[in-house]
């Protein structure tokens, strides 16, 4: 049975805080010895949006999330919510999914969810009901009385997500939430995140699955060495990036694309060549192709998020 998130978010959050506003990380700095994990990291997540937090390993994503959740302190900088500094009480309205398993392995799933909900100020009755609801929503209702350690990796991840959602948070901070999920699980979890954002929650998550991020995120920030190197709406970033020309030409020699900044040349059929060109004037390329042979395909493609990522943090 599928239950919409919007339908579940009835009566408002149990923690009693109704601050709708952006989550803002401003100039966060954090050092570990001589290593700067965060070096002036700043970005903003609007409510009702899904925000992808991307970066190579060691870029500072987890550190930033832990600072948001109050687990670590920044050396400098501030985290604000709704324009005001984030307090501990505010964090009761946050849901957190750590990168590695953040559950008691020997505790029963249902009890675990109820316990974590109560830590966020939910009453015992509401906590149990919310736990059951989320377990059903995430397709693991049958495992409610199982111990976490007895579940598969994917189901443990579902329980972890349920634990982050069980107190009806207004902000979700998820560190690699799709890790270990099969395609069905990914689709299911992505659907849940979309519904949460639609219901008004701000969702920020990190992931290395860039295709997935491109699919479900409206906004992203790419970090490298503790700094944001690229941020903005996904479609804006893609439009701003250098488009790629893809041409398939028949009956042309090999010399027509000589001198062009080709990214790839591929023989797709007898006498037919697919040429990918970057950073070139489309009209010039098209004219040269038409002069050389018959143009069967001509496409101007925006860069993918993976390409933007590689451009931003690549060597």
């Amino acid at each position, binding site marked *: 049975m599928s239950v919409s998130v919007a339908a579940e978010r009835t009566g408002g959050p149990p923690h009693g805080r109704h601050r709708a506003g952006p989550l803002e990380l401003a100039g966060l700095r954090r050092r570990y*010895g001589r290593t700067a994990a965060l070096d002036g990291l700043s970005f903003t997540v609007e409510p009702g949006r899904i925000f992808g937090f991307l970066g190579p390993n060691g870029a500072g994503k987890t550190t930033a999330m832990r600072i948001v959740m109050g687990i670590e302190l920044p*050396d400098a900088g501030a985290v604000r919510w709704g324009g005001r500094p984030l307090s501990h009480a505010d964090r009761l309205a946050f849901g957190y999914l750590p990168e*590695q*398993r953040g559950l008691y392995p020997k505790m029963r799933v249902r009890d675990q969810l109820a316990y974590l909900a109560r*830590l966020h100020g939910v009453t015992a009755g509401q906590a149990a009901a919310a736990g059951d609801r989320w377990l059903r929503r995430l397709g693991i209702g049958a495992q409610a009385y199982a111990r976490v350690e007895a579940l598969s990796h994917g189901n443990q991840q579902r329980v972890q997500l349920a634990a982050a959602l069980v107190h009806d948070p207004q902000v979700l901070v998820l560190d690699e939430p799709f890790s270990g999920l099969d395609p069905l699980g990914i689709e299911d979890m992505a659907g849940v995140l979309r519904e949460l954002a639609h219901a008004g929650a701000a969702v920020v998550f990190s992931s290395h699955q860039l295709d997935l991020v491109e699919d479900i995120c409206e906004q992203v920030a790419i970090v490298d060495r503790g700094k944001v190197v690229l941020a903005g709406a996904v479609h804006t970033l893609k439009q701003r990036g250098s488009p790629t020309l893809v041409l398939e030409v028949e009956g042309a020699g090999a010399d027509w694309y000589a001198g062009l900044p080709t990214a790839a040349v591929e023989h797709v059929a007898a006498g037919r060549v697919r040429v990918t060109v970057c950073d070139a004037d489309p009209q010039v390329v098209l004219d040269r192709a038409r002069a050389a042979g018959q143009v069967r395909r001509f496409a101007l493609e925006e860069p993918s998020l993976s390409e933007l990522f590689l451009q931003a943090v690549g060597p």
Partner: protein
Amino acid sequence: MSAAAAVRLVAAREVRERGRSKVFWVGTSVLLAGVVAAIVVPAMLGHYRQQTFRVGTVGAAPPGLTSSVIADAAALGGTAHIRAVGSAAAARSALETQALDLVIDGGTAVVVRGQNTDPAAAGLAHLVALDLAVRARLRAAGLPADRIRGTFSAAPAPVRSLIPVTPGTEASKAIVVAGTILLYLSLATYGSWVTSGVLEEKSSRVAEVILSAVRPREPHPGGAAHSWHDAESTPAIRPPSLPRLRGLRDTSDGRSGPRGLERGQLVEFRRLHHRLDMRMAEDLPLAGLGAVEGDARDYRSLDPLGPGWPTAMHRPYGSRDDTFIGCLIAVVPGDRDARPGQRPQQLP
């Protein structure tokens, strides 16, 4: 949620989950069985350990000797089982095989095995020997047999104890020893369970989830670490016994040296707590007022917000500041004329 409610909730989970563990119940049952045994067994042993002295007599015993021996045995906390032995050889054999504890030989001497003689039996032998010697003196003095018997049957003079004697002292000692061992085992067992619970949380990231909802110590009195973390959300931090510190924030870039701190300058040191790789923002009480030592570049600057505000510096005192080491916070007092041992001035 109040701190007390959070503590109750966390503790209740620990108790509830522990109560669902078979290991817990088996361990607790074993300990309880040990407690019961420690109480019952010494009491039973104390009861059965009332000693029976096996006394043999060879030849004719003086009149009234039997009742004297019984009285002596009772005085030693035991009973006497007296039987006649046919000959001195049989008595010797009985002593050697430990069938008898002592033998009264002809009413004139007492024989014990010697080697491995029970101390209580040796004590009884001395009492009986003394009894025989007195009887012999009385007979030699011409006292009639019935008067000698009457003399020995007289009630003994009362013995008064300055400190009342509690019955079963030996059993009590055994209970204390056993109880101490059980207490140690209980502490070790339950302590290991608590440790395993902590390890369970540490080995997973569940501690992060908990800490995102529950503060490790709330509300703490404030201080440098707290100040710069919550500076903007906390109007005023008022440590109960320290200068007011507020509005501290770290503006260092991590590379430049400290600003406003000189070698030899008086500073107030505080300790900042580090746990594993998590800075918990728990500052411990004032560590002392002292002078800056070492290379000033070791310090990282936390600039004051404005005139009159303290400058705070911190310096890791381990090889890494992301492990369980901590670091010193040096808060420069506003009064540059402060002397060692003097409290920094109260800031407005």
